[in-house]
């Protein structure tokens, strides 16, 4: 993992085959890939979500951490069972991020590419659909909250029970 200063905030769950973290600090993707391999691994798919320059200065990320962390863990376990994954890392950053910085890294290890690709896609879509994390684009004229793609309060969300 990347360096962790004493001032950074970080919540983390790690049981060897699944690691979930919500943190301020950047992510050392190379070391995640290295840690994801075992003798049965035939494919690793990495998803890296990055702050895009949509005429913004910075992006501010906020999470309801006590809920987001277990929900990310639940998504990782669902993907592991459904796609026969061997390893899942999900690291979501919070705080102020500049254009080009990593927002979210998902590392999925599996025996074969098919499962790895499908597992990775499942995880990112599930995160976007329901995990309580928000983004605000900070511009020269102020800021704007990024509208969610899903998430009405009337039932179109993942069951967090």
């Amino acid at each position: 993992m990347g360096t962790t200063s004493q001032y950074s905030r970080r919540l983390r769950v790690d049981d060897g085959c699944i690691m979930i973290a919500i943190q301020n600090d950047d992510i050392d993707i190379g070391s995640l890939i290295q840690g994801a391999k075992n003798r049965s691994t035939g494919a690793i798919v990495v998803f890296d979500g990055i702050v895009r320059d949509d005429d913004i200065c910075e992006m501010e990320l906020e999470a309801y951490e006590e809920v987001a962390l277990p929900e990310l863990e639940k998504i990782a376990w669902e993907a592991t069972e459904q796609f026969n994954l061997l390893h899942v890392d999900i690291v979501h950053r919070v705080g102020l991020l500049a254009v080009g910085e990593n927002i979210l890294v998902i590392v999925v290890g599996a025996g074969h590419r098919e499962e790895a690709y499908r597992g990775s896609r499942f995880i990112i879509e599930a995160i976007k659909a329901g995990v309580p994390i928000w983004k605000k684009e900070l511009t020269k004229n102020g800021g704007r909250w990024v509208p969610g793609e899903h998430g009405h309060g009337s039932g179109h969300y993942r069951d967090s029970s």
Partner: protein
Amino acid sequence: MKIRVRFFARFRELLGTEIMAEVNEGMSLPDLIKHIAQKNNEGYQAIFDEDGQFRDYVILMRNARRIDLADAAKHVVADGDDIAVFPPVAGG
């Protein structure tokens, strides 16, 4: 009794991060949130429509479990409850 109410994202900017509310027995969840949201008109209007109903994008959680908006009025808050109110999520 004491209830903790937390707002996130745009709702947080308008209404505050965390409010410790001292309320009487028997208060419903919508009434509690209305009571707090009334301090800021923009915040109130972001959460409630003209009829005082939750806007359909609002997400409610009680003690880390989501509550269907249609059932919100059936929830009577209890001492120590942890309520969260937030707009649609946009992580990833």
